[in-house]
């Protein structure tokens, strides 16, 4: 079994990593326990061997698609150690959220922790830049990392220019949890950072946890009547119909002004690629709304 495992591993190495070009000592078989780190890997041109919760990638990250053959490790909080060991990774990427696993992971391979969403200081976008640089250094892909960082900055700048006419309308960014509650993204969220970089402002001024969101009843959105509401997929089947029947919902400023827009799913706990995807979607979507007045 181990021999076959090794062969399978070797095959995937040959497929995904430009082996001969690699300097010695650069890890080739990489495992990620976090979506944000995995999407950054992909953006740097590296395909992870395995990923926690790989099966739900297409519902939460969507773009870029996960290349075929990435092995699913089960849930992140309980990634399958036996499977992980059989895969013989060179490097495991994880987050402080999974700190409990670290001693076990270190028995298998070199383990690197990247802190993006933590109670500590810094904003997700800034921390993502630092993490991307560090990841590029670890993988011998400094150039690709710098390219990713500057293309993200460039995209933010162009989006800022595109969205200049909308600069004075604050935005609510929400996920509908059910027919009565939303998860609203505020300070310390990736979306909040992107909104700021694109010259827009966040309508949610309330408290958020260190993942950057608060779970509140929909009526809490009434306090910023001049705002615009952007909701992200996925959304349960009965939510919209039930909202349309609600007088309170219909009386909210952004509903009356027709300033409610739907966005495809974007990873809320992601890194630079998700930030870019969010900015791109905002740039495409906001101008489609009816103009002011």
């Amino acid at each position, binding site marked *: 079994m181990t021999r076959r495992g090794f062969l399978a591993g070797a095959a995937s190495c040959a497929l995904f990593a430009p082996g001969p070009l690699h300097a010695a000592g650069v890890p080739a078989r990489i495992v990620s326990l976090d979506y944000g780190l995995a999407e950054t890997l992909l953006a740097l041109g590296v395909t992870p061997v395995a990923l926690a919760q790989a099966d739900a990638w297409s519902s939460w990250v969507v773009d870029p698609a996960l290349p075929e053959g990435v092995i699913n490790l089960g*849930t992140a909080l309980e990634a399958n150690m036996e*499977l992980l060991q059989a895969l013989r990774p060179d490097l495991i990427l994880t987050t402080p959220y999974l700190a*409990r696993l670290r001693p076990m992971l270190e028995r298998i391979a070199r383990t690197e922790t990247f802190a993006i969403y933590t109670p500590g200081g810094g904003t997700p976008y800034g921390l993502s830049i630092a993490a991307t640089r560090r990841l590029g250094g670890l993988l011998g892909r400094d150039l690709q990392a710098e390219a990713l960082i500057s293309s993200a900055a460039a995209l933010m700048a162009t989006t800022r220019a595109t969205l200049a006419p909308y600069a004075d309308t604050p935005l609510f960014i929400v996920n509908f949890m059910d027919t*009565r509650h939303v998860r609203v993204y505020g300070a310390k969220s990736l979306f909040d950072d992107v909104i700021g970089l694109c010259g827009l402002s966040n309508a949610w001024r309330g408290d958020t*946890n260190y993942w950057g969101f608060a*779970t*509140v*009843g929909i009526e809490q959105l009434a306090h910023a009547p001049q705002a615009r509401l952007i909701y992200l997929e996925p959304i349960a089947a009965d939510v919209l119909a039930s909202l349309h029947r609600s007088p309170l*919902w219909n009386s909210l400023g952004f509903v009356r002004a027709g300033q409610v827009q739907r966005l495809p799913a974007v990873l809320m706990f992601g890194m630079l690629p998700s930030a870019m995807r969010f900015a791109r979607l905002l740039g495409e979507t906001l101008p489609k709304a009816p103009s002011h007045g």
Partner: protein
Amino acid sequence: MGERQRLGPAAIVALLALAAAAITLSTLALRLPVTLWPDALFAPDSGDVRQMLVRYSFAPRLATSLLCGAALGLAGALLQLALRNPLASPTTLGISAGANLALALAMLWAPGLLEFGREWIAMAGGLVTVLIVLALSWHKRLSPLTVVLAGMVVSLYCGALAALLVLFNTHYLAGLFIWGGGSLSQQDWTIAAFLWPRLALALGAAALLVRPLTLLTLDDDHARSLGLRVPLVRLAALALAVALTGAVVGTVGVIGFIGLAAPALVTVAGARRVAPRLIWSALLGAVLLWFTDQCVQRLAGDAGEMLPTGAITAVFGSPLLLWLLPRLRLSLHLPSGLGGSISRANRPLLLIVGLGLGLVVLLTLSVSVGRGLEGWSLSADLLEWRWPRALAALSAGIMLACAGGVLQRLTGNPMASPEVLGVSAGAAFGLIVAMFTLAEVGRGAQFGAATLGAFLALLAILAFGRGGAATPERVLLAGVALGAMFDALVTALMAGGDPRAAQLLNWMTGSTYAVDATDARVATAAAALALGSLPLLARWLDIVPLGALTSSAIGLHPRRSHGLLLLVTAALTAVSTLLIGPLTFVGLMAPHLARFLGLQRALPQLVGAALIGGVIMVAADWLGRIVAFPWQIPAGLAATFIGCPALMWLLARRHSV
């Protein structure tokens, strides 16, 4: 019962209503100037957010709290009357858990169904579970304790399934946490409009049932001789209660304890006849929920952070129930099967040796057989990952089984076990307090906090059970109350989306995943110690039930041996709860299975139970690891999946005895 001067149900309702009204008015005054109230309520200015919020959020929320409370109070009273069971309620009969599970399943695999309305899905789920509960206890003629036991087992099973779904799909089912917490937050009148005609209809139907239910308060034979079709009346009342509960849990979610506390409080306050009990239960339920919800809104404040009312009612409700307990008139009989005698095994030693051999075989299988990318394999190179888990599971199983056996013997209560009596919940509670107050919680601190929690819970339970006759039912009810309080706390944490809550859920489901070699060694040592001290414990246990006089005549200090037994039980529970969470039913099941195999005397029963507990947990850990590869089902949950059916089978089977 002493004839002290008591508040009647009317006075209680009036007092609570007054308090609730005061809070309501003062909150409303903060939200909107008094002069605008009539405008807001009758002709709101849609441009004024404050008026719209009062008209479409504050007012319907108030109405919904009243309606839901009344519906649950009525449902609880109907269930208690129909089953002649003061412990019956939507929560204890598994109706809420079934509704919760049905909704989770629909969200994952049939999202299209949601368009028909969440309430229908919830109602169907509640109906299925209550039918299962009744089927399981049918042969015992729905004896009260059997019904509640079956209800708890089915609840647990549904809860385990729902937890598993949430664990594997945390992102998708985030909404379920809110729903499970019973948030009353409203944006329009649809829920109130949905509920009130149903409540009115149910009240009408209940009025028709008053006479038959009155006859039912006699015993079955009397009622039958008066021409009452007992099963029919029971089923009608049950169906009504399920419909009421389904309507509530489907629209706002699980609201704990109102359905149990309101009717019980009304009975204690002196309502005896059927009609007043129904009416006052509904009214008291309404004002209870109204009062609670206003307090919750006040607590949450304008920031509006998530505080689900349903979870909070359970936190408020549990102490209330504990207070009620000594005041409840409980004249119940034990389910004949569980307490009854069983033929003794001819060769207990042979049986125990057989069990031990089985355990060894299973342990070997568990560390050597697993799944990988290429399918099944028999290999030894993954041993380092497997042995700590297997040993930890084994030790936890042994310790829980011992704790359960000791408790059952000590209290003379066939239903006693660390899980049922809330001792596990106490341990878990201690751990949570440590987790959220201390920055860094090492294993030592965890063990200390858990033991303290378990011991306090055990003391509380026994204190409440004492005084007058410590009937098994009272002790049981106190345990249920503690367990529900702990559950509610976790639900409240989950609903807010605190990331620590996901880790909490992970631990609660009894995962052996993160057990390391040191943990496993300590656990094994503790289990060995427990096994070693069994002969000593067993000597006491054979004597203690004989009564204080006999035991002191034999030379045992009853107080001291009693206290020591309790301490041992608490410590055993704490260690095993740390390892496999508070949710397994191993401590309840294993001693029963041992007895069922014919091990009667204290020592053989305890040893047999320990071995059976070990077998169940090792099997659970192993199966959990391989069944859903690469996903892993936590051992605690897997044990529930194995143990619950075993317990149900026991329940359903013993009717012939």
